[in-house]
């Protein structure tokens, strides 16, 4: 008996689209071409169903209860933690901390890990393409504790120069904070190489995976990375939740961040001791219903052949890149090899906001502005850009609609 040949990975985008009710709505009577998933992704019905079913059947507060619903809710919450662990291939669920989002995950590292270790003059290495969420927490340490920010430039095509990066890591470096995938350029950074270089100098690495976790396979053990932050709402999950992976040794050594219920061991009037990780970092009632939604979203995404989804997204990007290549009034910003499915551009004679307004009336949702990446805008000497970002549910029709709308905008504005 001969084995059947392994089928080619396939991805049925029309079937996937049917999972998202919002995609079949119209705006101003036009078909919706939602090209703003980089800001936030839409949520499939299974995610919304999971949250609603849980909330209307098994809901209670977690952890401290011994009654049935409290047990059911605790089981659901901890099962979600296991789902996140598996999604990132962490060694242990104790290395997964639920947060309110990607921003809080990074702030947690800043407040609970780095701040107590920073002396004036200590350096933090980051790139000019970071999102404000991976910039501002480090500015705090500069303002409050005299840390020095060492900015690594990107090349003109948006790619990272690993040698320049390496050179920025010195004996004074206390942390490398780098995006896994730029939300403006689409650049995917060589995390494994970065971690190797940083570790060779004894420096821990935090990856901002808010975009990367959506489009790349994350394996924190293979990366040997110290911290990895992701957010629920970009990965087809709910708002109000994110997660931080951190190596157990780091978590154990970290001081608490928010104080409140669940994160203590014992409290008296004049003494306090703290719970072990991850509870130590989850003060108060956590995003319980959202954890169920996040797990459903990760299950949904992993229900596809991830390589096929990635191929689909890259195909869209290539198709869009080709379509705009012939528009000599349009300048694409970010063309790094292997980049993710994000297309940022400037259009001659058209301000990004005017352009976005006109695209909007054609049903095309793009983001216009600085995309919470002002240092990157400065680097490319622009005030703002327009950005089309692709998700698994986008199609070539979306791209065609975008290109047609670009032409209309030019008709009106130029």
């Amino acid at each position: 008996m001969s084995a059947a040949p392994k089928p080619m990975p396939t991805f049925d985008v029309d079937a996937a689209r049917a999972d998202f009710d919002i995609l079949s709505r119209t705006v101003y009577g036009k078909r919706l071409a939602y090209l703003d998933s980089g800001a936030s992704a839409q949520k499939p019905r299974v995610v919304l169903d999971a949250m609603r079913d849980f909330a209307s059947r098994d809901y209670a507060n977690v952890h401290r209860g011994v009654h049935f619903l409290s047990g059911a809710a605790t089981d659901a919450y901890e099962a979600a933690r296991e789902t996140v662990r598996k999604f990132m291939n962490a060694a242990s669920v104790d290395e997964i901390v639920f947060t309110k989002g990607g921003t809080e995950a990074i702030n947690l590292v800043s407040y609970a890990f780095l701040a107590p270790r920073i002396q004036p003059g200590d350096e933090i290495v980051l790139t000019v393409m970071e999102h404000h969420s991976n910039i501002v927490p480090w500015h705090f340490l500069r303002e409050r504790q005299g840390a020095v920010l060492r900015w690594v430039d990107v090349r003109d095509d948006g790619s990272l120069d690993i040698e320049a990066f390496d050179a920025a890591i010195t004996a004074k470096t206390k942390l490398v904070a780098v995006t896994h995938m730029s939300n403006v350029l689409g650049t995917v950074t060589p995390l494994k190489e970065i971690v190797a270089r940083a570790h060779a100098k004894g420096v821990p690495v935090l990856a901002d995976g808010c975009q990367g976790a959506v489009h790349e396979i994350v394996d924190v053990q293979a990366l040997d990375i110290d911290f990895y932050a992701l957010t629920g709402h970009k990965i087809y999950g709910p708002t109000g939740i994110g997660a931080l992976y951190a190596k157990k040794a780091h978590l154990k050594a970290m001081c608490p961040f928010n104080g409140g219920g669940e994160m203590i061991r014992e409290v008296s009037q004049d003494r306090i001791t703290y719970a072990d990780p991850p509870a130590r970092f989850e003060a108060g009632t956590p995003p319980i219903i959202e954890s169920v939604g996040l797990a459903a979203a990760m299950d949904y995404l992993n229900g596809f052949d991830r390589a096929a989804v990635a191929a689909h997204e890259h195909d869209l990007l290539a198709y869009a890149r080709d379509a705009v290549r012939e528009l000599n009034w349009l300048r694409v910003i970010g063309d790094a090899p292997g980049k993710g499915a994000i297309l940022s551009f400037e259009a001659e004679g058209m301000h990004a906001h005017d352009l976005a307004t006109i695209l909007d009336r054609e049903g095309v949702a793009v983001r216009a502005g600085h995309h919470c990446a002002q240092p990157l805008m400065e680097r490319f000497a622009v005030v703002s850009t327009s950005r089309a970002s692709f998700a698994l549910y986008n199609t070539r029709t979306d791209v065609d609609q975008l290109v047609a709308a670009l032409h209309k905008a030019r008709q009106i504005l130029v």
Partner: protein
Amino acid sequence: MDNSLRELYQEVILDHSRHPRHSGVLANATHKADGYNPLCGDRVTVYLALDEAGKVADIKFQGKGCAISQASASLMTDLLLGRSKEDAEKLMQGFLHLVKGEDAAGLSADDREILDVMSGLSEFPMRVKCATLAWHTFKSAVEGGEAAKTE
């Protein structure tokens, strides 16, 4: 093509945005303020020369921004030149009502006719702040120059 778009980006507006009146630095300015819209990064600086009677003897602006914000600044400088502070304030209130699609009865018929080119904005609530940035900046210039912004 969408009519409200045609109305928003009508020729007068585009002309103002491409060829802004009163653009530049005012050397003899008595008042000045910077305006900034953190949502899009648009900036405008408004320079004023107020005479003793509190009249706008001269006005200029400099800025970078979308067609709406540039056109609005250009139109504004055109309109405010020669007005008293009090008049300018009334004009501004009328303008704010107009772009939000509210009752702009406070405007004179002449002013209304001129500003009418911006009434299409009421269909684009997300862009109203682009149009009001210059006006808010003018106001803070008059009031002493704290940085204005619209968020």
